[in-house]
């Protein structure tokens, strides 16, 4: 079975197929099935715990990084995977929150992850609360060296910014888009002034309109159990999921009159322009006849 897209933005880059821990009990004789870009994969690890991947009887390059498996489906050389230095920083808690299936384009999922304006409405009482609805001006830029998008100087009033937050805080955020389907959020750490908690969003595209959204926490957190941190993230994503699955079209429009853009949508506009400039077609809405 062939992969369902030739988009070089996906075929020539690393795409996640889920947590590395799924291979702990998967020797070559008992591989784990996975799905990526409309194709079935088999994943397993050898006696040295090195991951392996095959599709259509052909071996594909696979690496284990940041607790996740990353597969390269293209024929050309694989680029370096993005950097996430906090992952190796001493004292950080690493918590894999698991994958959540969402029936929409992965680009919609990433755009939702980059958005603050929905906090008071979708995450009422945790990440936001009416009447604190204003999105204060912030900056976005594309880093010349890495090609990544950074949104900085973001802040938003949050009644309960994380599972460990006691009172409401003016939470400070920095957003980062590493690849079309991966992003990270750096947010005020309620426990350690000056540190940033990191949430990684790694989207595994099953096809143009079906994804698994994987969430990784890289936190300075000493008290909460893994289960409490995971439950908080599941609650947040459970609130986003019905909104995301109701969006029409499911694929993201990168231009045209279908959707309105305001100053408060700066990250979204920047992300769409960045996708357009890269020529991304996978998960993108095309006007009939266009």
């Amino acid at each position: 079975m062939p992969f369902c897209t030739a988009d070089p933005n996906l075929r020539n880059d690393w795409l996640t197929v889920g947590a590395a821990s799924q291979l702990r009990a998967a020797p070559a004789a008992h591989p784990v099935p996975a799905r990526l870009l409309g194709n079935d994969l088999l994943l397993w690890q050898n006696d040295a715990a090195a991951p392996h991947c095959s599709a259509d009887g052909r071996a594909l390059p696979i690496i284990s990084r940041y607790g996740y498996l990353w597969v390269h489906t293209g024929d050309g050389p694989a680029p370096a995977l993005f950097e996430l230095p906090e992952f190796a920083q001493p004292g950080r808690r690493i918590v894999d929150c698991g994958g959540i299936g969402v029936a929409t384009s992965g680009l919609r999922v990433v755009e939702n992850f980059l958005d603050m304006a929905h906090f008071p409405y979708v995450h009422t009482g945790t990440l936001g609360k009416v009447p604190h609805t204003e999105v204060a001006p912030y900056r976005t830029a594309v880093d010349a060296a890495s090609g990544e998008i950074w949104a900085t100087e973001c802040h938003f009033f949050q009644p309960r910014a994380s599972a460990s937050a006691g009172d409401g805080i003016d939470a400070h955020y920095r957003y980062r888009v590493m690849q079309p389907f991966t992003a990270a959020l750096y947010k005020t750490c309620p426990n350690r002034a000056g540190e940033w908690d990191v949430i990684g969003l790694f989207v595994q595209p099953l096809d143009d309109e079906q994804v698994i959204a994987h969430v990784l926490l890289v936190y300075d957190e000493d008290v909460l159990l893994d289960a409490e941190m995971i439950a908080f993230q599941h609650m947040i994503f459970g609130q986003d999921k019905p909104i995301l699955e109701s969006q029409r079209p499911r694929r993201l429009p990168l231009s045209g009159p279908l959707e309105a853009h305001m100053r408060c949508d700066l990250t979204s506009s920047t992300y769409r322009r960045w996708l357009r400039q890269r020529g991304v077609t996978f998960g993108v809405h095309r006007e009939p006849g266009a």
Partner: protein
Amino acid sequence: MTTRCDWFPALPAQALTVANTVVAASVCGQDLALWRSASGSVQAWEDRCPHRGVALSLGRVLGDRLACAYHGWEYAAGDGRCVAIPAMPHQPVPGKVCVKTFAAAECQGMVWVAPAENPPAVPPPVAATDTTPHFLRSIAIAVPWAMVEAALAAHDFTPAGPCQWRGAWAGHDRLLLWTLDASADWCLLHVASAAPPPQAQLPGLFGALRHLRERLQIAAGT
């Protein structure tokens, strides 16, 4: 078969309480958010926020406005114009942001919707009754509209106007039925009684409706 006009019977008006519910509906393949503003008028809007495409039927009625569930953008009853963007509370809302709206009218207990670009020149058809009907049930049937129409004709119901039938069935002798062409592969059958229904015979009627649905869906292979 009954005739068709520009209006389609979307749902019993009693399902739309004032300034409260938003109902997701489908009429001739057009997804709609149906709601009733504080002033009482029924609204039939495209079920899609013009900001990020989220279903407006997930939203909330705020008096004479409908607020989107995603970012709280508010749209005014009537023309569907955006009147508030809470993320930018101090800036004027650009006039061009607008929900697509359709003509809707209430007629003897039924909400009629015209899913066309332009509103029809004539009001919706009058029901074949001089009193407000007692609505009993609306059932979805996963077959094309014409199949349900043919089944009602075969049951000896009498055409009573566009998408409307009257007749007797399962111990109810003054039934009124409306058929809604929801989309290419499913429709809604609204069932009402012109007189207060005999309660003891309702289970028999509902059983007959379920049986009709099963029979049609098996015939259509759905």
